[in-house]
């Protein structure tokens, strides 16, 4: 119970986000109208993806410094769940774009960035699939994980800010504050980011436990 407090916290926060996000007052904005509520579900996916990938890179570095098999499993599982978040983020974004921008795929720099981030990690899974030696697989994929993530950083954080984008926080704007994110929405948005991330970490921890048990079964 004491160790699992963050799981309960994640569930409570998401309950609050779903109820509050769908029922509480949202600002009236042109074009966006009620779809602004998608912010609570679409943007946290993106944050979650980037955070989970970062943790994956952290474990990849940890694995290279000290080759424990645990760090490798964690790195892969964070990448797996990050990819799931990324796919959900793209799908929710396409749904939202369909109603506000007029079509699901707009070639917006951030959309392209997200698609490329997914490509990188899909390539990472392909790489893992094509090496048989377990130890070599772990090391090579950790190297690719770090290198590809670093190559992705300018793509996600720098280039969209240089180009015109229909996402807020681009074309010179620092980020969300310039957006019409008023205080009522912030009350739901920030908890939503934390809540979704906690759920992501929970899924990862379950998957890691499952993989470790599987490994133990194979060894015995």
């Amino acid at each position, binding site marked *: 119970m004491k160790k699992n407090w963050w799981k309960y916290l994640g569930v409570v926060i998401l309950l609050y986000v779903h109820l509050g996000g769908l029922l509480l007052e949202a600002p009236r904005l042109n074009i966006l109208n009620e779809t602004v509520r998608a912010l609570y579900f679409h943007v946290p996916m993106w944050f979650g993806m980037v955070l989970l990938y970062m943790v994956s890179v952290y474990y990849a570095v940890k694995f*290279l410094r000290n080759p424990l098999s645990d760090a490798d499993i964690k790195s892969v599982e964070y990448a797996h769940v990050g990819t799931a978040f990324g796919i959900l983020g793209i799908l929710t974004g396409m749904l939202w774009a369909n109603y506000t921008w007029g079509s699901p795929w707009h070639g917006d720099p951030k959309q392209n960035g997200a698609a*490329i981030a997914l*490509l*990188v990690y899909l*390539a990472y899974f*392909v*790489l893992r699939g*094509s*090496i*048989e*030696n377990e*130890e*070599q697989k772990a*090391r*090579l994929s*950790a*190297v*690719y994980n*770090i*290198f*590809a993530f*670093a*190559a*992705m*950083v*300018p*793509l996600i954080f*720098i*280039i969209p800010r*240089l180009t015109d984008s229909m996402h807020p926080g681009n074309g010179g704007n620092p980020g969300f504050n310039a957006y019409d994110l008023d205080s009522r929405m912030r009350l739901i948005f920030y908890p939503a980011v934390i809540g979704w991330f906690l759920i992501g970490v929970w899924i990862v921890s379950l998957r890691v436990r499952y993989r470790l048990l599987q490994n133990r079964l194979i060894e015995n």
Partner: protein
Amino acid sequence: MILTLLKKEFTLELRKKSVIAGIGLYLFSLTFICYITFALRHNSINAATWSALFWLVILFSVVNSLAKSFIGEKKGLAIYYYQVASPQAIILSKIIYNTLLAIVLSLAGFILFSLLIGNPIQHASLFVSTLLLTSLGFSSSLSLISGIASKANNSNILMAVLSFPVLISILLMAIRITKNALDGIDLAASYDELLNLMAINCIATALAYLLFPYIWRS
């Protein structure tokens, strides 16, 4: 050590003339296919299409020719290098050699494009400096990825799959500068992009230098 390794790369390359001829022919065929598919005898293409075609041709020929930097090498040779040289010296010599190769390839591509498809570039010095910078970025990324791919089973497909997402940011920057060079806009306008390209190159080279020892060990 790096110099010795570089010298070895050059001697090996010059000894196998068929490889150089193959790369040259690959570049020529790609350019020629562009020429034929767009029926350029009767039509002409606009500047944006020119830049897209040019970068596609350069991307494919560079990926294919730099892929061999580790993939083609024999197993026993790697063990020999492992004993005589440090991994840092090996990756640096590969990066320098590959950069030179990429520069030659992109300049040759530029000349071929000028001959067959036309040369709409108005700010030539800016464009050539972009070619030099992208060559460094391509070669440091591709040297490391070739090292990774050489250890796996289906190296050639893996090389393409692993390298394209990594190269996209370099390519995007290059295309933005190319657009400025095509319009003949002053150098000051592309200052940001050039700086960005240099920063990406630094990151890629530094990471290749740091990470290569880990893949070399296996």
